[in-house]
């Protein structure tokens, strides 16, 4: 009773809008309510789908088209009306007070439809009877929304679920029967009847019943009902304006493709519809657990929908909508994700409305709607663009709503604010600002310094395009890598498509993250100056930049390695459980990402042994280290154990195929890294790999010259004389050198193993050591700055050479080569290529070209089209011979060479009759 005057004088300040906390109810009860209603909603969805499927088979195609149009109009009436549910869920009294007005509005709308049914029938190509049925249904839309909202508000979950369930039930019985008897009009009559039946079940209880569970809070929150309705209208706009925009901006074909996406997205949106409505009254009552339950349920339902679509989008779309819509399979999962995010956002908006922050939610939604609108105008050139516009807008909305919700939680808010302030304070130190700038700069450099996909990337992309199970099977039977990066790439493709930027996004992010991570590692291992220097070097160092632009696992490798070393030093120095756990997770991630990372893990384990077992250590310290070490080792074993059978199957399969683990792509730049005349790594090869790791990839001639400068290493070794032995430095040196040395030794037996990518964990360690050397050796700060600047300059020059010098043996310009062919090719022309394993990269860049490997046979002798012979890996005699033989055969058949094109590591011959 005392709450009422409080509302009247309540200021807008959010701090005072927090409701009086209600007695906490068990999570199980809260979850049970939500699940019951959500199950009713899902049941309704499945039932309505079943109704559509049955009538699709029952009715003739034209008749079904009429019914489908009727259903669309029926939905069009109900969707905006559904926002009333939010208001009445928050204020059940609204259901009673607004009932007449809603009924009146519905009646008017129905009357207008009825009056205009004849002209509308002509416009909409629908029978007049169906429009009259639509008019009869119009009054139910608002009333059902009001009454169901009231049921949610009162916690009458059983009746709410029954109301949801009765609608498909009536459709499937009366609707199907009437449809069988009367055709589409009968089925439509069943739909209208089902609506009235649902309304009857959802009938608002008498006033006395309203005082059930949430009396006091309902009164408090009553004033926010208007904002709540507006907020839910805003959500409806964000959910639906892309469909409208697609219709307006795109041609019929693309609009139809987007309609398919919209239908799939509707799955996620529909599944989560009731969750925020159930949350509203509970949040208003101060039930703190209601929000996490609702977020979890909405998240689970949304992710379930994403997973259902993402597993095999092509197959799903093909089966449900026909093969002609296959083209949108790539963006199906991203769009469903957008709708799933919208479902979670609805929950957050509902919470904001219930806790008195409805106006803020409305403003936020208005902003999101405008953003989406702008994006639709900017990107809406095709169905994928419209989907991406919605994805970006919903992401922004979810992040904003999530942030606001977190800030609204009193205890978390305080903690977060503290952390935010600390983070902001750290950011605004000169070092923090510098590292932030370096990270942004490094990211920009990584995005700008791009190149086409090379073979390995194209192969992995082709694998990641497969359904998840098939991809794993392919990996297990034909590949040599563990599945972590493939899984990430698989998700990235489903979220962002398979464009160059999209498939490299995970590597770009990991590569950019390496910069601040090295700053932290350097700061903690040595000092802040070394941290800044390490970050500066990481921003421009050619090797990390190169692999940040490659859709492979090596950027992850470097990032995880840096984190593993960081966590190890923390664990030894500080030894908090989180440090040990962080170390174990990073180590497990390393192995799941790349098998050769096991060498780094072993090195770090040896370091633990050395530290924990060294003589003279105090007993408590030894005990602490041993406990942490053993526990972390056990955790690593536990996390890596599931990978073991996979790896064994992989090995067995490769052995059976006669490859062992040798099926790695041939090593580019081999002439600079292998012993002359011997196909095994030489000492110069080791040097070359070491230089690559720090200075990036350069032409073989440059690498030979750089390797000849090895005596400078003597100087480096001598300069270490008299320097203090630091265990941290020893650890870094060990992590950089031991895996490399092990692979060098193994490489004497299996040359392909000794390859800088496989010990690229050495790179962050090398950068840290360089940073330490540059900042600790000079006697003054200014000198140290000059040395770091010089190093960054050298790295910058090396990066420029790596990216721009076309003699870089690691540059394979398949994009340029196939682009050139595409530009010159005409219908009827044929592309043949060697070696055969270029198929994935040809499939990626050569879509639309008539291309096949030389192994598959040359074009018909009497064909009139031109032939493009594309050859790569010409440093390998078999492929060089194959290309030569193909060229000779084509010439013998009377074709003459009319052009020869060169792209880095690729040659193209164009032949014509």
């Amino acid at each position, binding site marked *: 009773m005392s709450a009422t005057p409080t509302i009247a004088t309540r200021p807008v300040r959010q701090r005072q809008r927090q409701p009086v906390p209600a007695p906490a109810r068990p999570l199980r009860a809260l979850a049970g309510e939500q699940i019951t209603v959500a199950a009713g909603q899902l049941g309704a969805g499945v039932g309505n789908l079943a109704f559509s499927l049955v009538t699709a088979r029952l009715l003739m195609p034209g008749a079904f088209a009429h019914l489908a149009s009727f259903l669309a109009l029926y939905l069009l009436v109900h969707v905006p009306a559904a926002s009333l549910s939010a208001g009445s869920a928050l204020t059940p009294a609204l259901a009673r007070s607004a009932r007449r007005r809603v009924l009146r509005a519905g009646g008017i709308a129905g009357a207008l439809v009825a009056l205009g049914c004849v002209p509308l029938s002509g416009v909409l190509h629908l029978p007049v009877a169906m429009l009259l049925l639509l008019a009869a249904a119009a009054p139910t839309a608002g009333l059902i929304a009001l009454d169901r909202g009231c049921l949610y508000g009162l916690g009458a979950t059983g009746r709410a679920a029954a109301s949801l369930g009765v609608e498909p039930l009536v459709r499937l019985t009366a609707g199907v029967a009437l449809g069988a008897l009367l055709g589409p009009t009968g089925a439509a009559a069943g739909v209208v009847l089902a609506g009235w039946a649902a309304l009857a079940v959802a009938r608002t209880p008498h006033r006395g019943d309203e005082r059930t569970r949430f009396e006091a809070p309902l009164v408090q929150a009553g004033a926010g009902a208007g904002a709540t309705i507006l907020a839910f209208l805003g959500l409806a706009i964000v959910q639906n304006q892309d469909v409208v925009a697609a219709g307006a901006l795109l041609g019929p074909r693309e609009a139809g493709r987007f309609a398919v996406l919209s239908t799939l997205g509707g799955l996620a949106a529909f599944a989560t519809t009731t969750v925020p409505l159930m949350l509203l009254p509970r949040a208003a009552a101060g039930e703190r657990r209601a929000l996490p339950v609702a977020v979890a349920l909405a998240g689970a339902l949304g992710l379930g929908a994403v997973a259902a679509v993402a597993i095999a989008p092509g197959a799903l779309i093909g089966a449900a909508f026909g093969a002609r819509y296959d083209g949108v399979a790539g963006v199906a999962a991203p769009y469903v994700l957008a709708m799933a995010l919208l479902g979670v956002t609805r929950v957050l908006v509902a919470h904001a409305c219930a806790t008195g922050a409805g106006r803020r939610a409305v403003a936020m939604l208005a902003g999101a709607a405008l953003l989406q609108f702008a994006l639709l105008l900017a990107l809406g050139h095709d169905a994928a663009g419209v989907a991406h516009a919605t994805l970006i807008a919903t992401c922004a909305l979810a992040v904003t709503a999530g942030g606001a919700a977190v800030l609204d939680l009193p205890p978390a808010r305080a903690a977060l604010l503290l952390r935010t302030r600390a983070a902001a304070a750290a950011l605004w130190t000169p070092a923090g600002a510098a590292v932030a700038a370096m990270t942004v700069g490094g990211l920009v450099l990584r995005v700008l310094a791009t190149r086409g996909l090379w073979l390995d990337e194209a192969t992995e992309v082709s694998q990641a395009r497969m359904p998840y199970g098939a991809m794993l099977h392919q990996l297990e039977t034909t590949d040599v890598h563990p599945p972590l990066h493939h899984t990430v790439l698989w998700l990235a493709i489903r979220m962002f498509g398979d464009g160059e930027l999209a498939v490299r996004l995970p590597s770009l992010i990991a590569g950019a993250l390496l910069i601040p991570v090295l700053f932290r590692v350097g700061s903690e291992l040595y000092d802040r100056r070394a941290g800044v220097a390490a970050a500066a070097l990481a921003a421009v160092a050619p090797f990390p930049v190169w692999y940040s632009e490659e859709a492979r696992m090596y950027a992850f490798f470097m990032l995880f390695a840096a984190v593993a070393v960081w966590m190890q030093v923390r664990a030894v120095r500080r030894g908090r459980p989180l440090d040990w756990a962080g170390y174990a997770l990073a180590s497990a991630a390393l192995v799941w990402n790349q098998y050769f990372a096991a060498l780094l893990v072993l090195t770090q384990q040896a370091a633990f042994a050395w530290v924990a077992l060294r003589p003279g250590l105090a007993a408590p310290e030894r005990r602490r280290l041993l406990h942490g070490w053993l526990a972390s080792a056990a955790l690593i074993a536990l996390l890596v154990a599931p990978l073991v059978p996979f790896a064994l199957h992989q090995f067995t399969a490769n052995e059976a195929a006669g490859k062992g683990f040798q099926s790695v792509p041939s090593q580019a730049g081999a002439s600079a890294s292998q012993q002359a005349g011997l196909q095994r790594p030489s000492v110069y090869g080791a040097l070359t790999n070491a230089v690559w790791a720090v200075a990036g990839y350069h032409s073989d001639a440059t690498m030979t010259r750089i390797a000849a400068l090895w005596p*400078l290493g003597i100087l480096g070794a001598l300069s270490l004389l008299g320097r203090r032995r630091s265990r941290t430095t020893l650890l870094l040196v060990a992590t950089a050198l031991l895996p490399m040395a092990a692979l060098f030794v193994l490489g004497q037996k299996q040359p392909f193993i000794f390859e800088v990518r496989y010990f690229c964990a050495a790179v962050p360690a090398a950068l840290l050591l360089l940073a330490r050397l540059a900042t600790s050796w000079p006697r003054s700060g200014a000198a140290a700055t000059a040395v770091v600047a010089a190093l960054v300059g050298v790295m910058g020059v090396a990066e420029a050479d790596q990216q721009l010098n076309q003699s870089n043996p690691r540059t394979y310009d398949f994009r340029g080569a196939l682009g050139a062919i595409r530009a010159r090719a005409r219908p009827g022309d044929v592309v043949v290529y060697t070696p055969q394993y270029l198929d994935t990269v040809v499939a990626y860049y050569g879509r639309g070209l008539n291309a096949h490997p030389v192994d598959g046979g040359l074009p018909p002798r009497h064909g009139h089209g031109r032939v493009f012979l594309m050859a790569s890996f010409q440093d390998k005699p078999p492929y060089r011979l194959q290309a030569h033989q193909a060229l000779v055969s084509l010439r013998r058949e009377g074709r003459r060479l009319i052009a020869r094109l060169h792209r880095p590591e690729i040659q193209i011959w164009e032949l014509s009759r």
Partner: protein
Amino acid sequence: MTTHDPRLRAPRWTAASPGANHRLRLRACVALCLPLAIFYFGWLLDPSRVGNPLLYAILVAAELFNLLQAIGFWWTCAGERAWHRRRAEGPPPEVDVLVPVYDEPIDVVEPTIAAARALRGARVRVWLLDDGGSEEMRAMARRNGAGYVRRRRRAGAKAGNINHALARTSAPYVAVLDCDHVPLPGFLEATLAHFEDPSVAFVQTPQCYANAGHGDIAAAAWSQQALFFGAIARGKDGHEAMFCCGTNVVFSRAALEEAGGFPEDSLTEDFELSLRLHAQGWRSVYVPEVLALGLGPEDMASYVSQQHRWARGCLAALPAVLRAPLPLRTRAQYLLSCSYFLTGWTVLAYMAFPVIRILTGAQPLAAAAADQFLLHFAPYFGIALGMVALMGSGAYTFRAFALQSASFWIHVHASVLTLLRRPGSFKVTPKRGTDAPQPRAALPALAAAAVLATVVVLGLARGSDPSTLNNVAFAIVHLTILGFGVAPALRPARPLAAAERRARERARAAPAQWAA
């Protein structure tokens, strides 16, 4: 007495072995060194490696000489034994403490005299042996209660001065302190106990340069001394071959008399005296405990003068070493010490190779892939360098190495003069450095640096083929080392920055930490 005198602070360095684990590590490394040396020399001595025969012969000679020096170093260091401090029993003996002086400043000498007067564990009589004939010195000796001895005829330099005093004193033990070495009160307590063994002729203690923070030369000179008075001296003691180093040493008078006193015709009278005593069957003991703090050379001229005197003296002693009736092990140790002063020749040879290659195309090795050389050389070089770092416990620095390399010409010059039997003169190492640049003191090294710089430019101008670049890189390595070595001669002496000094002291004093 000045309160800023670094010799009056507590010592921060210890000459003692890091412990049993250190000895174990050391021996394990030695066990690794030998096979790697065989691996390298097995490859190098293959006849197919011969390029230019003359250059090849020089290279092999230089490498073999350095190998011998390295093996000697490893063998010496591996010989160190566990050391325990002893306490003297019985009544305190009489000790004459002799402090020879030759025109050194009063404020350098007075702390030494005062500290000598305060020595514990013996009935001490301090004698100021003034070859400078200074009345101020006499007054200072009187002021501090020390005896004052002045010679009429200053023959035999420092050795003659001490011999002159020996004839006028009578205590059974004689301590010799350079006038700039301030003893700690426990100096005699720690040394006299070893004379319970009547065969001990002298007990040597480390020299520790308290002025190591007073410029790059002082720091580098100290760094060299730290390696010697650490691992090398401990090892020599283990091999019963520790020689007297002229100061911070206590003698048995009986031994001195039997040897006929300090030899007056040598530039390194302490070294030759030790040789005589060992030849007569006397033993020596090294106490790895800092018991006196002194001053090292602070400028290039002082350093050059000191090194030149040591080189001349030790090289001149080579025939005596070969003739003396010494046990094989002791003789080998003396030979190693003497022949060390020939290493400058190898540095000269190594510097010459890239110069000759770039100027003429001739090179010592032929038909050898550079990576094969690297494969065989790198492990040997790495482990050898690691041994130096391990033995020196971090005290031996790059600047010390650079200064040592830049002194190559001193060894060359000294050995030529010795070969020509040109007489040398004893010059007292100046106790105070000058602030002025001293390029003349490093002129030969500067000339070598100029030649190397020229061939670097020439090499780069001639071509960028890997072979030329490889030799240019070698030239750059030598040039850089020489540059670091002679740089202190080209700029005014300056104290090390406090932070750097602290870092160096911490590096010497602290064990390895799991920290930066």
